[in-house]
């Protein structure tokens, strides 16, 4: 999971681990791109508003990499409304969760994505 807000990372990590998932966290898009090769994740939770490289740029690069080309991505962001459409990435987003969210919404979404 990628998020520049450490507290958010912690909270989501606890939530997902309570659901029995193994969670690897990174604080930026750059860090994420660096580690995906070794981790080979089944699912990526991606924040959008991040310094340096934002979520959309990160998503574009992830999709360009062989290892994460088919990996599902859930966008978790404070932004409401359209986003992926603007960048033509709507097909690459499995789900869209608006912060603040209910824990149940997150766990349901992840479960659906990994089905």
């Amino acid at each position, binding site marked *: 999971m990628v998020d520049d807000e450490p507290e958010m990372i912690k909270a989501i990590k606890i*939530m997902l681990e309570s659901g029995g998932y193994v969670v690897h966290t990174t604080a930026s898009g750059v860090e994420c791109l660096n580690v995906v090769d070794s981790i080979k994740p089944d699912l990526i939770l991606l924040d959008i508003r991040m310094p340096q490289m934002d979520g959309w740029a990160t998503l574009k690069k992830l999709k360009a990499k062989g290892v994460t080309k088919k990996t599902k991505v859930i966008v978790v962001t*404070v932004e409401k409304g359209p986003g992926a459409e603007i960048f033509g990435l709507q097909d690459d987003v499995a789900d869209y969760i608006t912060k603040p969210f*209910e824990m149940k919404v997150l766990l349901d979404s992840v479960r659906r994505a990994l089905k």
Partner: protein
Amino acid sequence: MKKQKLIHYLGGEVGASAHLKESKELEHVLDGIDEGVLVLNKRYGIIWANKYFIRNLRYPRKRVAGLKCYKVIHNVGSPCRKCVVRDMFKKGSFCESAHFHTEKDGSRVWHEVKAYPLFDKAGKIIHAVYIFRDVTERKKAEDALRESEERYRGLVESQQDLVVRVDPKGQFTFINDAYCRKFGKKREALLGKTFMPLVHPDDLPATLKAMEGLKVPPYRIRVDQRAKTAQGWRWIAWEDYAIRDKKGNTLEIQAVGRDITDRKRAEGALRDSEERFRSIFEQAPDSILLLDAKTGEFLEFNDRAHENLGYTREEFKKIRIPDIEVFESPRDVADHIKKIVRKGSDIFETKQRTKDGRVRDILVNTRCISLGGRDFIQAIWRDITERKKAEEIIKREVEKLRQLDRMKSEFVSIASHEIKTPLSVIKAYSELLSSMVLGDLNEKQKELAEKISKNASHLAELVNEILDLSRLESEGHAIIKSSFSIRDLVQETVEEMNVPAHKKNLSLGFDATPAKLMLTADREKIRRLLRNIIDNAIKFTPPLGRIQVSAKSAVGGVLLNISDTGIGIPKGELGKVFDKFYQVDSSTSRRYKGAGLGLTICKKIVEQHGGTIKLENMRGGGTLVTVFLP
């Protein structure tokens, strides 16, 4: 007939042979005069004729002797009744008369004739001396004079102009018919009276003063006066002429008058109209000028024109447009004038320099007018310096406001993100707490954690609404129009809102609408609008209630109705529902969570589309929202 013989005859007959020499002298005298002289015997036979006679009658002298005078002169067979010779014979003394005789060529010759008797010693008439004078020319002249006088009289009497003559005292000596008609008076009533009582008292002094002019060359004056005519006071224009004797004394004054009342009235109206226009011209707040298109000279201008530029009237007469023009060179000005003449008119802005060097903004409105083959430019200059300044200030202020608005939007956007991030953390941790993933909580603790979570969500929703409203209010956020089926959109929204509606045990229905009912609008915003209205309805409708949505075609657009069976809106507050942060009362706001921005956003969206939105309480409870979108 020989002269000698005649003399002899004459002398013999009168027995005056002793006076032969005398007779010859007489004959000589008679031959020299310009009258015809005949000596006749008692039977009208010609005994002697003088040279004039012979010449005048064009008879050869030798054939005259013995001929009857009436045959020779009148070409008739016997003396006529009017014959002076006959009268003289009858009367026995001098007779005269005038008569004509017809020439051989048919023309008439007038003769003044006289007849004298010649007596013998016994006192008996033996001969007649007939003297005639050709007065044809005089006769002709007399006739011509008479005819001329008649013509003149006819002219004077028949014309419409008034013709009078007065003596030096002003008493009428002649009055024509037109004058009598005009004044409604008989000629006899006026002749010998003075004209003065007929003149308007106000005009009499001027009239008398003008008449003084008749005493000096050219002895002719013109004077306008009001006169007491049969139609009341009328303006008469008089032309007076002094008729003078050889010594130069005025005998009479002849006056010809004409009624000019109508012309005066027209002149008066024209003068009034001109005065009015002059007043407009002089008092206009703008400079008004008339320029010669050829020379660029200011022919006429109001005071404003020179005053505004700080010149006196005299100074301004000498300057030309290039002297005051800031932008245009003399050549430009000349070209511009040519253009105006060609186009007929032009409106433009320019800058002018005042005498003391200040620069003024001027709005120039020109028109070309042609008078008598010359082109003139009519120009109106309006000083718009102050207006320009004000415009500039407004422009700057508007730009400032725009910038402020951008800053505000940016601030709201950043602030909302910055608020939502920690809110999301609060929400996440409170969710974790209440989910008891991290360990068990007692009932009270769990309830508190849930409250934290709910309030975090509510706060986030409020932040979102503020953000939306801020975006809607900022100008840059234009609507993106497309054409779509209103049924499809309502259906999608209703399906989406069914989730929260069902949660509250409410039924949400949609009336059947034809799929082809299209709307051209910003689809996302209309979706937002519907969602907000339905969301509101859900919030304010108690469980087991019903919400119904319908869409139908209306004149010039689409009509959307959203009705509920909710609590309705207090009567006095219907007008406030669209105000920001409005909620019916504080207690309801506590019960029905919401920021109070939903309807404000709806109204904004509808306004952006040029539509209308209306809320009303339905009879039997509930609220009806009506939205019209063109």
